[in-house]
Structure formats: C-alpha cells, structure tokens
C-alpha cells in the first residue's frame, strides 16, 4: 500500500511542474495589463511603462517564471496589483472561507446522498425509488448556476430566510455569535451545493447496491443463514459504501470548481469569488497563484481518492 501511495506522489511532482508552467504562461497570455485603468483611467502611458518595468513584466517569460518559482518557495507569491497586499495573505484569508463552505457542503452531500441511494436501491422499483430517481434526473439536467440563482431568489429574496451576501454579519459579536453567523451564511449555499452534489453519489450508490443485491456472494451469505438485515449491513451496504468513500477526494475537486459559481452568486468572499474578480482586473499574481492552488488541490483530491481506495479495497492494495 505504501508503495502505491509513494508512487502516486512521485507521479504528482512532474504534474505540478507542468501545471505551474502552463498556469504561468496562460496568465501572461491574457490580453491587457494590470495597470491601465486601475490607477487612473487617464494615466500616462510612460508611467505605466515604468511600472511594468520595475515589476519585471518585460523580462523573458522563463526569467519571470523562475523569479516566481523562487519567490514561491519563500512563501512569497508577490503582491496583488488590485488589492495592494501580499497574495499569500489575501488568499489565506479567503481560503478559510472556501474551506468552511466546502467542508460543510461535503458533509451535507453525504448526509443526503447515502440514505437516499441506499433506500432507493433497497426498495428498487417502488415509489420512493421512483421519486428519488426523478429527483436525480431533474437535478442532473439543470445547470448548477441555475439551481443557485433559483435557490437564492426563493429562499434569500422572496422568503428572506437566509442572507444573500457575505460570509459573516458585521454586527455579530465575537465568539459564539460570530460562529453562528458564519454557519448561517453558509447554510443556503451549502444546501444548494449538496443538492447538486448528491446526484452522482446517489446514482452511483444505487447501482452499486442493486448490483450487490444480486451478486453471488450475497447469495452465499443467504445460504449461510444470515438474516436479511445483516446481509444488508455486513455485505451489501459495506461493499457498496467503500467505493463511495473514495469519492471523497473527487468531491473536493468538484466542490472547488463549484465554488466559482456559488461564491459569485452569493458574493461569498472565498477563493472562487477572488478568482473571478482577479480575472476581470487582470490581477496576474493572484490569478496564477489561485489557478496553481486549484490545480494542486485537484491533484491532491485525486491522490486522496486513490489512497482511500487502496486502503478500503484489498484488491487494489496488492498491486
């Protein structure tokens, strides 16, 4: 098992290097520059030229890339042109918010999806199964941002049950009220994200359970005289849930990508919103840093899934 994991980690190193070069070049290739318009719409081109020069933006790309990597290893990602503060500080502040939302959404997703998938499969073809399947089809067909917009409109504006912007109320007292307010702010985006995220897990789990129900090893268990409820517990659900555990890694990936939509719609100050804003301001340093972080997190998510899978499934452990 350790061999598998070590090998997977080693594979990741060249992946990350290639990723970082690509990210850097893409950011460079974006049209426009970070100074025109941001300082003063009528700024003197010579002044902009000067700013570009002292920021090293005229150096050859590999020079700029190398500088960037060296700084990276010193924990220095440069300054945001837009916010005029170190990118590291800027992103770490936002990352905490994104992390909270992502964790909360993951927990909710599994809380919704596992019972739904198992129940649907156990009562295959009956009414609750049909309802759950219609639910998954419908949710699957609607784009995520549409779900978000409809959700925020109904529950945020029309019913007014949930806040529609920000991550915490500015008037909340420190301590418990702040935590409660944070939770209150991620409730609606979390639920909507979870509703969307359940679909894959429910469908996957349902088909896993149905396969397991008719499998030969379950028939063997029946022939041992194992009661039906224990067959579900020890054989069917157990065997179907293990591969789902490995989904956890991939679901992080999905959530990060989803956070771009969620945070934009909810004006939630996380990495996703920062990313969208930075693109409109051509804030290269922030963009490159964020794409790199997103890329690495995606790789880590896949790695995590592979590791979980190798732990739970003895057939993979060996190779």
């Amino acid at each position, binding site marked *: 098992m350790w061999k598998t994991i070590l090998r997977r980690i080693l594979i990741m190193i060249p992946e990350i290097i290639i990723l970082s070069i690509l990210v850097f070049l893409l950011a460079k290739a974006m049209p426009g520059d970070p100074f025109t318009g941001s300082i003063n719409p009528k700024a003197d081109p010579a002044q902009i030229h000067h700013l570009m020069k002292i920021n090293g933006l005229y150096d050859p790309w590999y020079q700029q890339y190398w500088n960037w990597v060296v700084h990276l290893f010193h924990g220095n990602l440069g300054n945001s042109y837009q916010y005029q503060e170190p990118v590291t500080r800027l992103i770490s502040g936002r990352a905490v918010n994104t992390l909270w939302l992502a964790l909360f959404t993951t927990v909710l997703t599994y809380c919704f999806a596992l019972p739904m998938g198992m129940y649907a499969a156990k009562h295959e073809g009956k009414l609750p199964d049909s309802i759950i399947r219609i639910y998954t089809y419908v949710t699957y067909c609607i784009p995520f941002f549409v779900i978000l917009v409809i959700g925020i409109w109904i529950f945020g504006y029309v019913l007014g049950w949930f806040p529609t912007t920000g991550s915490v109320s500015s008037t909340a007292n420190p301590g418990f009220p702040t935590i409660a307010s944070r939770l209150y702010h991620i409730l609606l985006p979390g639920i909507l994200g979870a509703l969307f995220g359940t679909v894959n897990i429910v469908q996957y789990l349902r088909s896993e359970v149905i396969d397991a129900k008719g499998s*030969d*090893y379950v028939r*063997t*268990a029946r*022939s*041992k005289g*194992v009661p039906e409820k224990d067959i579900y517990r020890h054989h069917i659900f157990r*065997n179907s849930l293990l591969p789902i555990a490995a989904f956890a890694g991939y679901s992080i990936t999905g959530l990060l990508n989803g956070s771009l939509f969620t945070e934009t719609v909810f004006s939630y100050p996380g990495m996703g919103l920062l990313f969208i804003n930075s693109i409109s301001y051509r804030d290269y340093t922030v963009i490159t840093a964020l794409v790199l972080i997103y890329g690495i997190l995606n790789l880590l998510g896949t790695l995590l899934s592979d590791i979980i899978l190798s732990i739970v499934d*003895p057939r993979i452990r060996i190779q």
Partner: protein
Amino acid sequence: MESTSEFLNIKDVNTSFKIKGKYYDAISHINLEVHHDEILAIVGESGCGKSTLATTIMGLHDPAETKITGEIDFEGTNLLSLDEKGYNQFRGAKIGMIFQDPLSALNPLKRIEDQIQEVMDYHTNLTAEQKHDRVLELLKDVGIVNPKRTAHQFPHELSGGMRQRVIIAIAIACKPDLIIADEPTTALDVTIQAQILDVLRDIQKENHAGIILITHDLGVVAETADRVAVMYAGQIVELGSAEQIFNTPKHPYTRSLLRSMPQRDNENDDLYVIKGNVPSLQKMPHTGDRFAPRIPWVKSSSHETNPIMHEIESGHSVRCTCYKDFEFPDQGGQRA
C-alpha cells in the same frame, strides 16, 4: 449405504418464475428423496432446472418473482412452510450449499477467516477463539496446506481451486446433514476437480451427510454417485442407482446423454449429438412427452399422453413408456 433413512423428501415440488407478468414452470412435479451417507447426482443439460431445484431447497428465491408449491420435508419440517427466520435455522446449519462459480461466490472485501466464521456466528455458541480454531481445522480438512496464511487472505489472492475449498469449508462448517453442491467442479481443471470431489467424499464419511451433486459431467457421476436422477426440461425422467443408470439406462434422454459422453476406449468415434435444445420456460410444452420433439423418429403412439414415472425394478423408475420402443436412428430406429 449403511443407513437408508431418508431425511429429505421432496414431494411434488413445482417452481415457477414470473416472466413478463406470467408464471412459467422451471421444475415440475419433482419427487425425490435423499438418504444419509449417499451421493445423489442430478444430471441434465443446461437449462433443465437443476440449479432451480437446488435453490428451491435452499429457499433462495425471491418470493415476489417465484411461485413454489409442493412440500420439502427435511427431518420432519416442511421447509416450504417456513418464513425467512425459520429458514435461516436450516440454511448454513443443517443444509450447506456449494456454488458453481468460486470466483464470485466469496465476498471480495472480506478475509477468508471472517467469511467462514460468519456461518458459525449464526448457528453456534462458540467463543471467538473456538471459532478461530475451527476455521483453521476446516481449512485443513478441505485440503488447504497453510490454513493460517489462507485464513488471513482475501479471495482474490487465492486460486480457483483454493476458493472452491473455502466455499466447501463454509458449507460444512456447521456439519450439515445435507450438502447441495451445484456444479462444484465445473469451473476447475481436471486434477483440481478430482481433489475437490475427494474432499467432499471424505467429509461425507465423517458427517454421514447426504449430498446432492449437480453436474452435467457424467464422468463425475460415474465416479462418485450412489444414485442418479436424470432431469429433462424441469422433470425427472429417470431415477435409479448409479449401476442401473449406467448399465441399464432406459429413458431415451438418459441413453442419449450416455451416448454423447466421451469414452476413453472409442476416442475416434464421432460423438453422438442430441439434436435440438432444451425448450425455454415460455416454450415448455405442458402435455405429452417433453423429450419427444428431439426424437422425432419415435412413433408418437409410443409416448404416453401424460407421461408418468414407472417403477421398472426396485429403485429404478422411468418416465413415459416410449423407452420400450426407443432405438437410435443408426441402430434400427426409423426416421419419421
């Protein structure tokens, strides 16, 4: 056969499956008994209903999709009258089953030890330690060389023959009176087959179990069985001791099967082929001799309109009277 007391008595059992809303018989009017210390072989082509009979005895059918009638008398209890809880007192404890495909019959994510132990969890009061010892003992009994090692392994780490031994260990863990082995050696190569059959015989000697051995390999039957039931299209067409079936086969189907069996001494001869197929459930005729369409040269007047079993000598019965007129076409039988 020292003890001839029958402990399993199958009386007029019918099992039908629901296909597109209608029920179709897969086995009809099965009458059969099994004694202690005997191996009863059930033979027949694919689709004859052999497995259906086995799973009917085990109660493994989904009641929503299957209709079963008749009586299966097991040591004084009619199994067919039991609910799931009642059945579970028998399954694994008094009846053990060995399945055809050892590759898929074990849970891929559980260690061998846990899978063998599970059956004892429900039917014995042994302590964890005693169960552990019993697992090792069982693995040794079924011919596994390094029981300690195997107990700790997962199914995918074992060869097909090893897995089949494990499945046998599960089936015999609680010393059942009846062992149903549904093609236990079909997926294995010949040398392993012989070893597995030896294991079964050894176990039987110890436990005085009755074994139902389902197979379509007549060589296996000749070597192991005490009695043979020949099934065709859901019915038993001939039943007798192994000598009776092999030396004086009567039913055209039995004779065709035997003739289609490869023999060591006339390897060069073309094998006899039974023309046609076992009818599917929906196409199964419900009157007349079900085998008649595959021996069209036999006069229809030779068949009974509703063929029944006739006892022609002690312990030897044949369905239908057509056997009296039956000849193979190349041995004097005329073509219709």
